[in-house]
């Protein structure tokens, strides 16, 4: 359970987010929708602890989010994970990055870590990529590997920032289906996106954001119409 209370955020006197109040329940599949510059990514980064909170609070299970994050690893797929071209990293090693949490200095990864990483790859049906170099993957394949790393953390929450970037339309439907499957397995999914039409077929809750919270509802036809109008207005 994530409770966001009176959350506001400013950059140099410009208001990015204003007085956001929302609860995200365990097992939800949340799509955060809004026009460009609506503060979607900022909202995500605040929840992830990647930006410091200025006003308001975020609690995970009644625990202040900074304390929670010290003891727990969240899973996060950034908008863009740009790496040096030809960086010689194998898929399995990138997935194992998700197992670094709680490792003291000089403490090695164990067989259990390796098993969890392999299991994550299997779940996403990309086990065969294990020893491939990340450089040789397509955009969609790379996103799946990042999702495998997210699973390897064993976090209850998976945050995604515009996962549609870098995947073609066919690949995207498959990717959303995977997310849906992860959700069925008990993961709480929180995805920021531009692409409501596709995502709304899979998500359970839509949060509409444009500085303030505009709506928070199930994605039925009625709501979709309202959201479309809202996004058009935003443009």
């Amino acid at each position, binding site marked *: 359970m994530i409770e966001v209370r009176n959350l506001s955020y400013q950059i140099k006197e410009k208001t990015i987010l204003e007085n956001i109040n929302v609860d995200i329940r365990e097992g939800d599949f949340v799509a955060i929708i809004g026009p460009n510059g609506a503060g979607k990514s900022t909202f995500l980064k605040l929840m992830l602890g990647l930006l410091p909170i200025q006003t308001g609070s975020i609690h995970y299970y009644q625990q202040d989010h900074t304390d929670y994050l010290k003891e727990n690893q969240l899973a996060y797929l*950034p908008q863009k994970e740009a790496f040096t071209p*030809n960086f*010689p*990293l194998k898929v399995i090693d990138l997935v194992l*990055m998700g197992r670094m949490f709680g490792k003291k*200095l000089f403490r090695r990864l164990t067989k259990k870590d390796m098993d969890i990483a392999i299991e994550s790859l299997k779940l996403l049906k990309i086990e065969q990529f294990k020893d491939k170099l990340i450089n040789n993957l397509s955009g969609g394949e790379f996103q799946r590997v990042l999702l495998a790393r997210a699973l390897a953390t064993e976090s209850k929450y998976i945050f995604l920032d515009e996962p549609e970037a870098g995947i073609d339309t066919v690949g995207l439907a498959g990717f959303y289906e995977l997310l849906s499957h992860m959700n069925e397995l008990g993961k709480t999914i929180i995805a920021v996106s531009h692409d409501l039409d596709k995502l709304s077929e899979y998500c359970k809750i839509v949060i509409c954001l444009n500085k303030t919270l505009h709506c928070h509802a199930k994605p039925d036809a009625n709501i979709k119409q309202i959201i479309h109008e809202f996004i058009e207005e935003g443009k």
Partner: protein
Amino acid sequence: MFSFLAINFLMYSFIAGILSAVSTALLSVFVTLKKISYMSEALSHISFAGIALALLLGLSINIVSSIFVMIVVGVILYISLHYNLEESNVTMLLMSVSMAIGIILLSFKKSYVADVSSYMFGNILLINKADLYWLSVLIIINLLFIMGFYREIIYTVYHTSIAEFYHVPAKLITVILLTVLGLNIAISVKITGIVMITAQLILPGMISLNLTRVISKAIVFSVFVSVLSSILGFLLSFHYNLPSGAVIVVVLFSFFLVSLFLKKLLIKEIQ
């Protein structure tokens, strides 16, 4: 062929050349992947001020220059973090200032001109037995760093902020990497010279990454090619009476060209 080893100081410099090739090559793959070749270039110039200070005060060059370089690494990191400035700009700024300070300090010494060129281009006559111990300790430090933090270093080099999100101590690793790099440069600079040590820090990594995409293998190969270049370079320079540092760089560059050619062949084979 190896008759020169009978002469003590030549033997020392020959061994020192090999040891320095090993220590710099151990870091070379990471320097190449993290794209901090400008850092090695800058730190070698920064060490010049340390050397000048040691010469003026009549103290150990290795100690003074190591401490000086480490302090400057600290200053670079502090300024770029706390004043939100681009790290590369701060580094280049401090490089110019250090060179300026070094030249001012050396102008107080009478033998100014000879000293500058010795340190700019390396001078085997400057090497003594103590340097061999220093270089050996340095190799051990490098090995401990790489073996102790192998995965952490790779993740930090891959993507610092993502690594941090996944609880890799990326900032600490960066600080240690730069400090170890600074130490290597401060100690090795006498042998290869300020101008050419960057080649020794970049080329072995570039050569080995042309030939293998496995980081651990690349590190081993990088050491191999660096030592081979050092031995070949030394023999050639002795035989034709040429400056050793410069010859080693040219030999390394020849290996680089060969590796480019082989890389093309390898890619064709895969296709």
